[in-house]
Structures are given as structure tokens and as C-alpha cells.
């Protein structure tokens, strides 16, 4: 059993690593997608017109404002005037963001307490708003790090997106890319690997050997599960180190959730392969199911804004649950006590899909 499984895995890896197209799917696509998404979302956001409401008027507060402007992402359009004026500017669009520093900012810093600043962004264009928040976070963190060198408290950015309250729950792109790519890569690899055996004719040779359906299924999923983990790692690292995406929650929980999610995607891949005879058919089928999964996941469009009937559909979408889990772990540092319903949903769907695939595989081979 172990020997047979080992042989199957060695063989799958040999085949994948020898196929330049497959190598592209595994490593090229994730890297390129992450970079493209990362830059497509970020490059066009510079010089955000910013209204500053500085009520502290201290050297420290001026330094913070300078940190914002020197980053190149923010341009101060109004440094005088109170909150009302800033709000009015946000309303008529002459300002895209309001940076508010309350009295006591410098005092808090010196006293070793957490100093709060508030950033309000125009959320009508949620993508831009999201990126603006990423920048602001980065700037304040850096500022905070600089002042912390002296024995002082840090700065915490309290941000608020106006006009689009969903912004916070929708959040950043890296978790979405991880979920999307892992699905795409593992579903393609699994379905292709099985259909290729049918196309070439080796499936007959396998069926006549003592390999059991369970061994076959394991041999056809474990290698791609491993590749799935590698992709999660790859995109995460790129996100964390290149795009400064925080990872606040438990990495262990991330791996566990990935396992459950992979069960669903591998199950889908296997099911597709039982229904197709050629690799071309399989590829078409993959994209046929992939796009609805992505569109109905909350990755691009908030689920809350979908018609009710469509919202129900998203309940059977593994991508939806994994996105919630990823965003929770990456951005909010949420733990299993909050994410367990999503984890349970993925586990249940994964088990059901794999069971269905095993059953169908038995039938088609009989």
C-alpha cells in the first residue's frame, strides 16, 4: 500500500516536473498573478489629495504629516480648518482622505501610551480606498517604529472608510489570490492527471494492476495537495514580503484550513476527470466551474450585495469559506473560535466531494 502510493507519487511528480506547461501552471501563474494584481491595484494611487486636521500642533504631529507627504502617496490640499471643512471637502471630492490628529498625540507618544490618529478615506472607489489604507498603515507603522526607538509609545492608525461600509470586510487582494490560484492550480492538475491516463490509455494498465481505487485516488491527489501547499506558501511569502500584507493569525490554522480547502478542490478536479475523456474537455470544464466559483466568492463583489437567491448559491462555494478564513487569519488575526463554522463547512464539503469522486471512479472502472 505505502510502496504503491510512493510509486504513484514519484511518477506524478516526474510527469509534472517534466512538463514545461505544468511548471508554468504551478509556479509561473501564481507569481505573475500576484504581481499583476499587486501592481494593478497599487500603481495608480499616488498624490491622494488629503485634508489634514491637526489639533495637536506639536513637532511630533508635524513629523507624522511629513511622513505621509514624503511617501509620495499623499498630497496635503488643506492644512487649516477643522473637521467640518474636511468633511465638506471629502463630500465634494476635492479631498480623497482626511488625516485627523487629536490633541494629546505628542503627549501620548512621550508618555509611552498608544497614540491614535484617524484616517478617513473616500470609499466610493473601494479598490483605491483599500490601497490608500494599506499605505497609511505602512507609513504609521514605520513612523511608530522610528519613535519606538526612543522609549515611547507607538502610533495606531484608526481608519474608517466612508460611503462604503463593506470595505473593511472585503479587504485585501492577497488572500483572494491565494484562494483563487490554489483552486485553479489543483483542479487543473488533478483533472488533467487522470484524464491524461485515459487519453494515453495507461488507465487500462493501472486498472488491471492490483492498485485499489483508494490508492489511485490518493496517488492522484496527494502530489497536487503538496503542490497546493507550495503555492499557498509562495503567494503568502510574496504577499508578506513584497506587498507588506500582514499575517496576524496562526500559520498553523492557515495550513489546517488549506488542507480542508484542498480536499474540496481536489474532489472537484477528480469529479471533472470522471466526466471527461480528453484533456481539452477537462480544461473547458475547469474554467466552466472556476468562474462561477470566483464570481460568487466575495472576492470581487461583496456577497451582501448579491440577490438573495444567488447568496444561497454561495453557500456551496468552498472559495467563499476559504476567503473568509484567509482574510480572518491574515488581516484580523482571527482564531479557530471564530472561524470554525467555515472550517467545518470546508471539511464537510471536502469529504463529500472526495467520497463522490471515489464512488464515481469505481463505477467508471467497472
Amino acid at each position, binding site marked *: 500500500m505505502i*510502496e*504503491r502510493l510512493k510509486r504513484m507519487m514519484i*511518477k506524478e511528480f516526474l510527469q509534472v516536473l517534466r512538463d514545461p506547461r505544468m511548471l508554468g501552471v504551478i509556479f509561473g501563474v501564481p507569481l505573475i498573478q500576484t504581481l499583476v494584481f499587486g501592481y494593478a491595484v497599487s500603481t495608480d494611487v499616488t498624490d491622494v489629495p488629503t485634508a489634514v486636521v491637526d489639533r495637536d500642533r506639536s513637532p511630533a504631529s508635524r513629523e507624522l504629516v511629513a511622513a505621509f507627504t514624503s511617501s509620495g502617496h499623499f498630497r496635503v490640499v488643506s492644512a487649516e480648518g477643522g473637521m467640518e471643512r474636511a468633511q465638506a471637502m471629502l463630500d465634494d471630492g476635492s479631498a480623497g482622505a482626511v488625516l485627523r490628529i487629536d490633541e494629546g498625540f505628542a503627549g501620548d507618544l512621550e508618555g509611552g501610551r498608544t497614540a491614535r490618529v484617524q484616517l478617513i478615506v473616500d470609499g466610493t472607489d473601494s479598490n483605491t480606498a483599500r490601497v490608500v489604507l494599506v499605505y497609511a498603515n505602512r507609513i504609521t507603522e514605520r513612523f511608530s517604529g522610528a519613535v519606538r526607538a526612543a522609549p515611547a509609545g507607538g502610533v495606531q492608525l484608526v481608519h474608517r472608510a466612508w460611503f462604503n461600509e463593506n470595505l473593511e470586510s472585503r479587504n485585501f487582494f492577497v488572500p483572494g489570490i491565494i484562494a483563487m490560484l490554489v483552486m485553479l492550480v489543483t483542479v487543473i492538475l488533478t483533472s488533467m492527471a487522470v484524464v491524461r491516463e485515459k487519453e494515453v*490509455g495507461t488507465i*487500462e*494498465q493501472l486498472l488491471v*494492476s*492490483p492498485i485499489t481505487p483508494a490508492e489511485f485516488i490518493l496517488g492522484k491527489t496527494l502530489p497536487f495537495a503538496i503542490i497546493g501547499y507550495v503555492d499557498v506558501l509562495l503567494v503568502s511569502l510574496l504577499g508578506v514580503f513584497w506587498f507588506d500584507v500582514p499575517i496576524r493569525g496562526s500559520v498553523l490554522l492557515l495550513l489546517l484550513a488549506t488542507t480542508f480547502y484542498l480536499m474540496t478542490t481536489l474532489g472537484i478536479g477528480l469529479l471533472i476527470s470522471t466526466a471527461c475523456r480528453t484533456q481539452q474537455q477537462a480544461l473547458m470544464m475547469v474554467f466552466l466551474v472556476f468562474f462561477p466559483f470566483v464570481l460568487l466568492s466575495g472576492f470581487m463583489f461583496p456577497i451582501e450585495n448579491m440577490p438573495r437567491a444567488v447568496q444561497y448559491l454561495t453557500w456551496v462555494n468552498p472559495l467563499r469559506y476559504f476567503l473568509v478564513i484567509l482574510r480572518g487569519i491574515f488581516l484580523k488575526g482571527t482564531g479557530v473560535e471564530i472561524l470554525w463554522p467555515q472550517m467545518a463547512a470546508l471539511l464537510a464539503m471536502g469529504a463529500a466531494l472526495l467520497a463522490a469522486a471515489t464512488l464515481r471512479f469505481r463505477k467508471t472502472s467497472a
Partner: protein
Amino acid sequence: MSDAIAVAGLGRRFGAFHAVRDVTFAVARGEIFGYLGANGAGKSTTIRILCGLLAPTAGRAAVAGVDVAADPEGVKRRIGYMSQKFSLYPDLTVEENLDFFGGAYGFAGRELRRRIDAVVEETDLRALRGAATQSLPAGLQQRVALANALLHDPELLFLDEPTAGVDPVSRREFLALVRRRVRRGATVFLTTHYMDEAEYCDRLCLIYRGELAALGTPEELKDRLMKEAVLEVRTGRPLEAAELLGGLPEVRGAALFGESVHAVVENPDEAVPRVRAALEAAGFPGALVERIPPSLEDVFVSLVEERDRREGEIREVRR
């Protein structure tokens, strides 16, 4: 424990279509049994049933004493199978293919190496162990596939058109390898539509549209036709000659054999001069007409034509 394969009333339907119908035969141990038939005759369907890959819809089949419907896994362990489709991983090397399939049979470590060395030696593939399978010519690929099927020393070998698309020299080499295995005690069931391959078999079963049409040694099958005779007719225009001969009352059947035409006649002494005269009259001067011993292909053609005639008559009567 007498017969290697025992088949009784075997049938397989796909929907309303009978791919195999009411086939009965037995194969003795140590025999090379040829299963002969045209495209779509039901050869692969039969072989897949016997290998436990496809459940029969009628009748019974036992392979090495194991019932294929009741215990297909038991059958699979005892047999080696070369499917009609290419059955190796083209992107892996010869060695990697053997490693994989050996592993599939549960062999590992030194045992696996020993077995691979043995079959590589047996099939004379030493120099090609590291070669990418897809880069090999068809004849060598078939040899690798055979090596694969021999890894676990099966008592029975099922070969589905093993030499299709392979040149005659490689085909002969391949058959010699099979023959050597048989001498070591294996039983072979092979399907083919090559007549020279069929001549090589100890016994033949002719299958026509899913049904058994004839069964016997190649000699028996030829003898059965001896009451008729085969005339070889050589002219410059074989196609037209075949058409003409087919229309003559004393000719039961005429078929093209390369450059010549074979005509089956009942009474050669009377038929030869009449055929000559008819050819002469139709403008084939100097045609060579000669009586020849029937080849298996003649048997095949005449059996099929006879069957078609019978079925035609049945259809006439029904109408």
C-alpha cells in the same frame, strides 16, 4: 485446474448492441491462442472481460480457474495484459515505467530491481533503460510494454493486437519473445488481424460481428476449406479481374490479395479452363491461373462470405 481459460456462452451488450454474443471456447495451459477478427468484431471487448476490466452481461468466463465476474481482482493478480491502446507513460523513461508498474504490483527494493533486470534482459532492452519511451520506434515500445506485462511473472498473458502498426521484422522478434515465455509455462491469449501472426498460434478462434465463426488449429481451419480450392489469378489489372471473377457462376468468392486475385471454386479441374476462357474473352490476355494451397486469409474471407450469404438468405426469408 485443467483449462487456463474456459468461456461458456459469453456475451456483452452495450445498450441494444451485442458486441460479443454467445461465445464458447477453452484454452489449454501452455497454448498460444489467437483471437482473430476484423475491426469492431469484439476482440477487445472479449479480452477486457477476460482481464476483469469489463463485466460480462451473459455467460461465464473463468481465467486460471477464477470466475471473472465473481472475483475480477483475483484474475488481475494472475495475468499480464497489454492493452490495444499504447499503455506506457510516454514522458517517462523505460526504467521509470518499469519502476512504476513494478511498484504498482507491490514490488520494492532489491526484489523490484531483480525483476526489472530480468525482464529487461529477456526482452533485450538493456541499452534503452534510460531512453524516453516516446522517442522509441513502435516496435521497441511494444517490447517495453511486454516487459511491463511480464514483471510479475503472470501465468497468463493477454495481448490485444500487440503488434499493430509494427514492421514485420519487429513483429517476428516480438512473437519469438512471446514464444519463449510460453516455453517457460505461460499461456497466451492474443488478438490480431494479421494472418502471419495468426499462423503463429497453436489454435485460432475466428470472431465475426461478436459471434464465434470458427475454432481450430490453423491446419484444421485450412483443411476445412480443402474441399474447395483457391485459384490465384495474376493479370495486369487485378481490380477489374476481381470484379469479373466475382460474377462467374463457378466462382464462390473472389478477393484481392495484393497484385493478384484469389478465387474460391468448388471443382478446380473444371473451373480452371473456364476461368481462363472467361478472362481471355473479357480482354485479359495471358492471365496466369494457378491452383494454390489456401492461406489463413483465404479461410477467413471464405468463412466471412459464407456467413454473409447465409445471413442474407435469412433476411430474404424474413422479408
